[in-house]
């Protein structure tokens, strides 16, 4: 069923009796050409593009819980392409371009809102660094705009410009950045994939791989063995646990990242802002809540909840930048498990096992990557060659000294 304004009107006049489930609930078949493990944003997008772009039929997505219950439903919904390094920026800009046409493409309202993102500048050295980043973005076909403090003040008059320690000296704006309704991304891709014949199988945990003579023949699941021509793994924070079943150790640590949302307010914050002197970023959801977050907790975790020191740190960052926040009540806070890679950049690659492919290491920035990650992983699965924007995301880059370390932090995942 296609969704449209006309459809809403028609349903309104007929008592909303004609809506159908947005995707089926099929039982697993004994074998698929391609099995995707993980019904998060990346797994669902991969299945969608495999069917829609690469002409594959006979695909399943296996999800241990419900689709959208992982990080795709836990993130702070920011999209942007303000990266600097060659291995990253073309990929993230490809992703931003896909976001721009996504809702028409999959016929679902994902509330893509290009309200702009503004990275604040607090020192001369930071202005130099952001100027360089902005130029790298423009060279890669993205948009970037350097703002003076006065220009920032016009758009965000309530920020703490004259903080004695961290005065605001300007900002790097990407007007095409913004936010997207995260759950709707999972649902839109799921519906789009399902309508093209993809089986989305929930409550189906993959417990192991069947590997013979170096070839992956399928997966063992809580609902029995499922054969597969190719298996693509996209399980985000659970990447190490999953790949350990294939005998692999990954350049990844799992860390918890927390996020927060306040009570609903009238519109106060027009775009996304990030503090350049501490770790704090904030946007306002369409329901009115201020959505914000900051640093990782900093230790390995699979707990989907964090501890209080980071809550305090985030609150302090928020107060330093945006003092009005102090009067607002917090409604909810939660955590998600990040697949933090050793250089802060992702992996989309084959493994040494035939028929087994991997997508992970997204750190805290994989939501914005969802469309391109799905497209590039589908490209790899369908053609056995990397997509031109994802050629740097290889496993062996650590061995070959070709790390993609945006922050220059080295092999220390909690610092990326």
């Amino acid at each position, binding site marked *: 069923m296609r969704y449209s304004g006309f459809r809403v009107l028609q349903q309104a006049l007929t008592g909303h009796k004609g809506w159908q489930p947005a995707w089926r609930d099929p039982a697993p078949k004994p074998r698929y050409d391609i099995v995707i493990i993980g019904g998060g944003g990346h797994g669902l997008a991969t299945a969608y593009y495999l069917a829609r772009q690469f002409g594959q039929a006979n695909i399943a997505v296996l999800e241990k819980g419900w689709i959208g219950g992982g990080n795709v439903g836990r993130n702070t919904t920011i999209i942007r392409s303000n990266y600097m390094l060659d291995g990253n920026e073309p990929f993230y800009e490809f992703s931003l371009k896909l976001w721009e046409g996504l809702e028409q493409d999959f016929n679902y309202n994902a509330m893509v809102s290009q309200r702009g993102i503004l990275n604040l500048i607090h020192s001369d050295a930071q202005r130099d660094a952001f100027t360089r980043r902005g130029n790298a973005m423009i060279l890669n076909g993205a948009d970037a705009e350097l703002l003076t403090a006065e220009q920032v003040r016009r758009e965000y008059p309530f920020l703490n410009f004259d903080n004695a320690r961290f005065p605001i000296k300007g900002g790097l704006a990407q007007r095409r950045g913004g936010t997207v309704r995260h759950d709707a991304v999972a649902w839109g891709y799921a519906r789009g994939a399902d309508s093209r014949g993809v089986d989305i199988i929930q409550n189906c945990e993959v417990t192991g791989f069947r590997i013979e003579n170096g070839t992956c023949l399928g997966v063992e699941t809580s609902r029995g063995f499922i054969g597969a021509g190719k298996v693509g793994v996209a399980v985000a924070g659970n990447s190490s646990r999953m790949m350990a079943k294939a005998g692999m*150790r990954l*350049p*990844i640590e799992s860390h918890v990242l927390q996020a927060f949302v306040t009570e609903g307010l009238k519109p106060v914050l027009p775009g996304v802002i990030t503090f350049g002197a501490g770790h704090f970023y904030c946007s306002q959801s369409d329901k009115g809540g201020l959505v914000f977050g900051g640093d990782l907790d900093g230790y*390995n975790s*699979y707990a989907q909840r964090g501890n209080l*020191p980071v809550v305090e740190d985030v609150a302090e960052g928020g107060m330093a930048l945006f003092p009005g926040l102090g009067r607002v009540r917090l409604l909810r806070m939660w955590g998600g498990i990040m697949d933090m890679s050793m250089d802060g950049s992702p992996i989309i690659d084959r493994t040494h096992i035939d028929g087994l492919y991997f997508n992970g290491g997204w750190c805290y920035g994989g939501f914005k990557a969802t469309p391109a990650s799905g497209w590039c992983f589908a490209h790899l699965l369908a053609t056995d060659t990397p997509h031109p924007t994802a050629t740097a995301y290889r496993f062996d880059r*650590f061995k070959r000294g070709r790390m993609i370390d945006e922050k220059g932090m080295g*092999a220390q995942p909690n610092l990326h």
Partner: protein
Amino acid sequence: MIINHPLLGPCDAQEFTYLGDASLIDRPDGMADGADAAFHDYLYLRDNPAGLHRELWFHEQGDRSWLVVTRDTVTHDITSVELARDVARAKGRSA
């Protein structure tokens, strides 16, 4: 989280910085054959288990000792704390 320091008693985890898996104590011999491969694995690959994890914490705002903390990554429950020096010595790695 409270880390029960073997010398100082219970301390807030906030006083510490975190390095990672305690296998980082087992630094390979840079002069041995195959050192480049050993260093790749040492520097970049991790077990990253869900469950008990032995890991290095540095008491930066305390006595500046390195500790090996055994902690459950699923519950954050800390089950044992040792001085990293003792652990390294037991392996014959520290004076």
